[in-house]
């Protein structure tokens, strides 16, 4: 049951997108997100859709995974849509008492929703094609220069690595505890929210106790392996930018220019 959960949402693969340096992917994702805020026409989003489509095609991620990652967004989409439709001044479509919907509002709602959807799409392509550990490595490298202003780059990466490392262990343990409690007649499946929350207490308490014990033991084991933070630490696997990374930067630069450019060329539509 619980043990079926896969780690993160990484889909292993051998495509160019998978093989890009994590730093490239992180930087380009950030650039893409920023560019999205410049896009405010349907034509712009159409272009966006074409880009995303191409990347999806190359990376071999099935569309259904992307849809899965967008699904939880509906609540935000509806929320922003309602606010935009009814709070924007403009030409009135219909009016109920003091609440009025406007054309401008509807347009803005569509733009905002699309922006949100494309934003999540872009970031989920990043996490689908990059293993959490490689991603962590990329973040550590990108934050490296900020160590001078006391950003604990290595420590942040180490915490993320340990968290990723212990997720399956803790899930396994939760599973074991749940089975043990079920064997004693605990019921996690039925009852109202209160009853279910109550049933979780005998799981959570031992889980916390054991998590602290684990942390203690891990700290000791790390000390025995001469861990002393990021100073003078080397890495076995070095990140190297390749030709394909340069290519990706180039393509991204062109695409982003296009995306932003389309906003200022309304004549094109």
């Amino acid at each position, binding site marked *: 049951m619980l043990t079926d959960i896969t780690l993160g949402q990484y889909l292993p693969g051998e495509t160019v997108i998978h093989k890009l340096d994590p730093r490239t992917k992180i930087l380009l994702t950030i650039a893409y997100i920023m560019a999205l805020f410049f896009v405010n026409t349907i034509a712009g989003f159409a272009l966006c859709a074409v880009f995303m489509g191409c990347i999806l095609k190359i990376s071999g991620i099935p569309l259904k995974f992307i849809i899965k990652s967008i699904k939880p967004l509906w609540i935000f989409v509806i929320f922003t849509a309602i606010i935009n439709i009814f709070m924007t001044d403009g030409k009135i479509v219909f009016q109920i008492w003091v609440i009025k919907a406007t054309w401008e509002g509807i347009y803005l709602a569509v733009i905002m929703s699309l922006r949100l959807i494309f934003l999540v799409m872009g970031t989920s392509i990043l996490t689908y094609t990059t293993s959490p*550990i490689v991603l962590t490595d990329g973040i550590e490298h990108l934050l490296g220069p900020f160590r001078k202003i006391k950003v604990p780059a290595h420590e942040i990466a180490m915490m993320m*690595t340990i968290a990723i*490392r212990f997720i399956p262990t803790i899930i396994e343990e939760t599973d074991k505890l749940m089975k043990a409690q079920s064997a004693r007649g605990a019921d996690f499946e039925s009852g109202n929210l209160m009853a279910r929350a109550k049933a979780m207490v005998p799981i959570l308490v031992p889980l916390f106790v054991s998590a602290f*014990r684990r942390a203690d033991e891990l700290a000791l084991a790390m000390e025995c392996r*001469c861990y002393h933070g990021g100073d003078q630490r*080397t890495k076995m*696997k070095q990140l190297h930018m390749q030709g394909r990374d340069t290519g990706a930067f180039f393509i991204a630069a062109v695409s982003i220019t296009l995306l932003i450019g389309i906003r200022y060329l309304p004549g094109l539509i």
Partner: protein
Amino acid sequence: MIEIQDVTYRYDENQIDLALNHVSLDIREGEFTVILGHNGSGKSTIAKHLNAILLPSGGKVLVDGMDTMEEERLYELRQKVGMVFQNPDNQIVATIVEEDAAFGPENLGVPPQEIRERVDFALKAVGMYEKRNEAPHNLSGGQKQRIAIAGIIAMMPRYLVLDEPTAMLDPKGRREVMKTLRYLNKEHGMTIVLITHYMEEAAQADRVVVMDHGQVIIDDAPSMTFANVALLKSVGLDVPQVTDLMFRLRQSGVYLRHDLLTIDECEQELEKRLREIKEG
């Protein structure tokens, strides 16, 4: 050589019983030493003195002549004396086998190319090289413990101290770990200090140290140690029947493998020997 010289230790001031009570012990190079003892007899406490996790309240610990009290040489000391603990899950830091093996050398600031060589060497030494790109959580307990050992080997220690590394493993995992330790000792001359509750494992050592109430009460070859059944019983240790039987048969000159852990295995081995004897 690690010299433990008249070491006493108490965990807190008000404790009446000393966790270590004037212990003197030499760990000689190339030796495979097993430390036995009932729960709370001070085995872990002594292990933690070997790489300065604990510092003696009285007496001295010298590792190759270096006092464990010397704070400036702490990393050098911990590189020399590697330590493996009971629960492999709580020792593995990275999410990929080979990256975990690289963790120690990375901390020591070893150049990347050399780390690669060390990691490959260490993973081959414990027989986990084929699994180098896997996630540890998908492996068995015995395999995980071997990865924990590889993580220490990659630091190129002279001494390998293991505190009940087989306690959480099934018989198969225990056998894997013991095989690895014997291999490291025989083929690479690694000095090994193994703390265990399993007599079968002690029987495979060069030397057995038995502790009780913070003191060393026996320090001898396994054959001599196990001959003293009465004394072992008096400190709460039992010679398991299988070990006892095999041990006595071996003593009386019957050639038998000494790495058998279960009744089934012993039965098979005995059957095989009997058949061989009958066939002449």
